[in-house]
């Protein structure tokens, strides 16, 4: 081995080895585990069942419901985060004096852990919390934000609250290189603010939008903490996500093989949503 390759191995080796052991091996293992029936985490009780877990999944209503919830969550948070994130980035890009305040306000939630965010929102939206206090003082009736009717919406709103800053900052960074001359040209042509956004800003930002949308899609599949803290997947599984269902099946019900099959579905779907990027990007260039 020449000196060049030895040095490469020296620098890359440790991280590659660490990655292989802590990411690739588990990915392979979860796939193998999904083909077994294993209850209770004891090696003697493991049996090979082939595709049986997947057949059982296909008949499991809770699984389909979790899949539907997760998909809805991924799509709605992606839409909400991008509309709000883009809008706020435009406001930050303006020369308005109060923009520093907004910048701080949307940055702060990024440093707050989902657990604490859940804690705050749970109380704030609770029966006695601030929002219901305000509703009562306005003569309204108390609203059960974490009840069957609204729990899912609440989770989406809290998630959007947590991550808007992320999108806003990415879009804001993209807007920095917006060509001023094109904007000016549009103004001369008589375009109003909305026309400039539609015909100049959005087309210019399309590659950035593609990246951000995919980041949100990928991030959406990772949702766990906020659901666990706010609802534990309830009431009556109405907010169960694939990730919380994996946790529930593996660590509450001890069905390791079955939970692994759900995990494989999550991995496949998260990977697929990363491939969408090519499509959005292709449209931008085409």
């Amino acid at each position, binding site marked *: 081995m020449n000196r060049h390759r030895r040095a*490469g191995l020296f620098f890359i080796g440790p991280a*590659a080895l660490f990655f292989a052991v802590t990411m690739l091996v588990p990915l392979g293992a979860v796939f193998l585990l999904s083909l077994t029936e294993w209850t209770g985490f004891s090696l003697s009780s493991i049996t090979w069942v082939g595709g049986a877990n997947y057949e059982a999944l296909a008949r499991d209503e809770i699984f389909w419901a979790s899949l539907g919830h997760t998909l809805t969550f991924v799509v709605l948070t992606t839409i909400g985060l991008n509309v709000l994130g883009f809008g706020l980035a435009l406001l930050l890009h303006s020369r308005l004096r109060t923009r520093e305040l907004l910048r701080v306000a949307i940055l702060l939630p990024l440093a707050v852990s989902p657990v604490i965010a859940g804690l705050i929102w749970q109380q704030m939206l609770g029966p006695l919390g601030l929002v219901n206090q305000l509703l009562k003082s306005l003569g309204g009736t108390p609203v059960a934000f974490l009840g069957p009717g609204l729990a899912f919406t609440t989770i989406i709103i809290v998630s959007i609250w947590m991550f808007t800053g992320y999108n806003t900052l990415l879009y804001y960074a993209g807007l920095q290189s917006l060509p001023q001359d094109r904007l000016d040209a549009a103004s001369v042509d008589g375009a109003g603010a909305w026309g400039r956004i539609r015909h100049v800003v959005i087309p210019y930002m399309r590659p950035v939008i593609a990246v951000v949308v995919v980041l949100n899609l990928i991030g959406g599949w990772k949702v766990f903490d906020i659901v666990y803290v706010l609802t534990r997947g309830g009431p009556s599984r109405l907010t169960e996500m694939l990730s919380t269902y994996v946790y529930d099946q593996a660590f509450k019900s001890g069905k390791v093989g079955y939970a692994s099959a759900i995990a494989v579905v999550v*991995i496949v779907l998260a990977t697929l949503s990363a491939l969408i990027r090519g499509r959005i990007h292709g449209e931008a260039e085409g």
Partner: protein
Amino acid sequence: MTAIAPSEMPAAARRGVDRRLVGRVAGNLALTLLAGVYLLPLVWLLSISVRVQSDVFRSLLIPGSFDPANYPRAWDKFGLDILFLNSVLVTVGTVAIGVTLSVAAAYGFARYRSRWTEVVYVLILVGLMVPPAAIIIPFFLGMLTLGLYDSLVAVIVGETSFVLAFGILVFRGYIDHIPHELLDAARVDGATEWTTFRRIVVPLLRPPLATVSIFFAISTWNGFLLPLVLIRNTDRATLTVGLSRYTGQFGTQDWNLLAAAAVMAIVPLLVVFIAARRSYVRGLSAGAIKS
């Protein structure tokens, strides 16, 4: 602005000024309102944290009572000394190991390119997509087998594995921009690969080192699933797991104390975050645009 009073201007220009003024006022109002909405939960938390028990759900935003002794009380009640210690250990461990591994690997990828290193690089980036819950089962089993279950080491290893790819991505973005002549010159001068890396490359990487460290710290300090699954003993719980016990149906009566605990759990990170805001933003854009 100008010395001309609006009434002296032609009507059309006056309408333009009016419209701009109205737009500016409306814009500022919208900005302030939006900022208020985003700040509200945190302001409310702060307000609750200093109230006496009977006032918790009575006053709205302005506390009707003021008892800062909630803070030491919360510290004792929730055993925050242990929780803080564990969170600090996990965070410091992850940042130290994660930064070391990723900066070295990024240098390797940038400097010793071959078809194989590129394959490994892309493979590692795929790690960015894997949802933690999807591999938590084998992770748990592995730690159990290795005898690391219920130890902070298990959490550190897990958190490092999920942040590693991001670190490599950001560092490589910077290293690719270091002129090759600089590194080749060092080699000609007889420096070993290691010396070149240590003396020339690392000092140039101070900005991304800050960025990556903050990212790793935030993600680890706030991490939840890994300590939830990998730790059983309450003496080894982290802040997020310790405080999560008071959520759900089994909440606490002392919401004012829990709020004080939550404020204390947020503050250290918030201070670091605000101080290093620029690095964070830079990393965010670098990471996103390269990926």
